[in-house]
Each structure stands twice: as C-alpha cells, then as structure tokens.
C-alpha cells in the first residue's frame, strides 16, 4: 500500500470572502510536493467550488484531502440542509444561491457541474436535514 498524506480543514460558514483559503493551501502543498500542474489545477478548481458551496448553502463544513501516489481524494462534509433533488442540482444553470452571492459573481448553477467536470469520479451522499458529503477523486 502506498503512503497516504492527509490534510484537513475547517471551513467557516460566515465569511464568503475567505472561501478559497483551504483550496489555496492545498494547491501550494501539492505544488511543493511536485504534483503535475494539470492535476493541481483540477484539484484547486473542484475543491474551491465545493468550498464555495459549503459556505453558501451549508454554513461551512470540513474538508479532508488524501494524497497517494496515484490519486487525490477530496472529501467535503457538511451538516447543512442537504440536497433534496441531486439530479436537479447537477443540472448546468440550476441554482438556489441567494441574491447577495449572485451579485458577487457566483451562484450561476455551475458549482457541482464544474466539480464533476474536473474530477475523475464524484459521489454525492446527501440527506435532507442532515447534511451532504461530496467525495471526489482526481487520478494522478
């Protein structure tokens, strides 16, 4: 079994301007580890979208990033409201983001589609009233 490096982050739910700090930190760490720059970009984009979703919809949450020789796994877990209709949420352009978020340039209904696009594998486990866990793999 290959060695696994794990990074963990708590994402505060009240500060939209700070969203991205965890993704930025992971990006820098992967860069120092000499991970392929294309893979780093995909991780950064997928993780940032997830981080933004957590702040907008779930009041924050926890992120775990696990790096092995051939894979980067990102697990985003929150105890927010859950997603009532995952299929709808995956549709490009479908959004439930509030107006103040839209005025900042987000909330165009592209978060989950972007996460799917930039990861090799994405799984959503969600329960209304309990929370959502999104697991993404980016192969190296």
């Amino acid at each position, binding site marked *: 079994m290959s060695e696994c490096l794990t990074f963990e982050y708590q994402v505060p739910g009240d500060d*939209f*301007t700070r*969203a*991205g700090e965890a*993704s*930025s930190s992971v*990006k820098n760490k992967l860069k120092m580890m000499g991970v392929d*720059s294309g893979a780093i*970009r995909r991780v*950064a*984009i997928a993780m*940032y*979208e997830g981080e933004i979703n957590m702040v907008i919809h779930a009041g924050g949450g926890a992120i775990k990033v696990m790096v092995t020789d051939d894979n980067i796994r990102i697990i985003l877990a929150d105890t927010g409201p859950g997603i009532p209709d995952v299929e709808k949420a995956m549709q490009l352009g479908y959004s439930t983001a509030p107006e103040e978020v839209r005025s*900042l*340039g*987000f*909330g*165009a*209904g*592209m*978060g989950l*589609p*972007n996460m799917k*696009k*930039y990861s090799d594998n994405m799984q959503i486990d969600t329960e209304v009233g309990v929370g959502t866990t999104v697991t993404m793999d980016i192969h190296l």
Partner: protein
Amino acid sequence: MTAVRDLIEKNCFELKNRGRADKAVTKVFCCDLLSVAMGKAPEGCAWVTVMGNRNTLAVASLTDVSCVILAEGAALTPEDLACAEKEEITVFYTELPVFEAALAVHSLL
C-alpha cells in the same frame, strides 16, 4: 511569447499590483461570472473583468491566470489589493470597456 512584463512595460493599463511578471500570457479571457471563469478560464490567460472583489482574486489564483485586468473603472479595496500582493497576482486597472481592454492585450500576443 508575451509575458505580463510586456503588458507592464507597454503601459497599456494602470498597474495596481505587480505579481509574477515573468508569467506568459497565453490568451485573453473576458468573463464577469466567477462561476463560469472558474470552469473556463484558460491557464495563463489575461483575464478581463468588471467583477472586482476578493473572490475574483481567489478564482484568478486557483485557475492560474497570468494577470487580472479590471475594466470599466472597476476597483479592489485596499484589503483585497493586499491579498493580491500576498498571492502574487498582477492586477491592472483601466477605464476602457472590456472589449477594448481585451483588444489591447490581444494586439500584443
């Protein structure tokens, strides 16, 4: 190959923060919706937008754009400019409309 340094030296726009000037400018990209930019901004592009906030810088950093050009007089707060400095993102200001700002960069590529 055009680099951010060339944009600085040609004085096309007002330089507000000098980041990594050696970065190559691969393309010009115009977009104000950060969600779209997140998924579509090409690596190394010069990103022209009127959306000047902290999240613009986060997207710029995570998608590895070469520089951000805030058009139509859009501006960042001093705190956001400090963030651009920390993240080494080159930021320009211009009063030009988005299309004309993009055209000015395009003519140098």
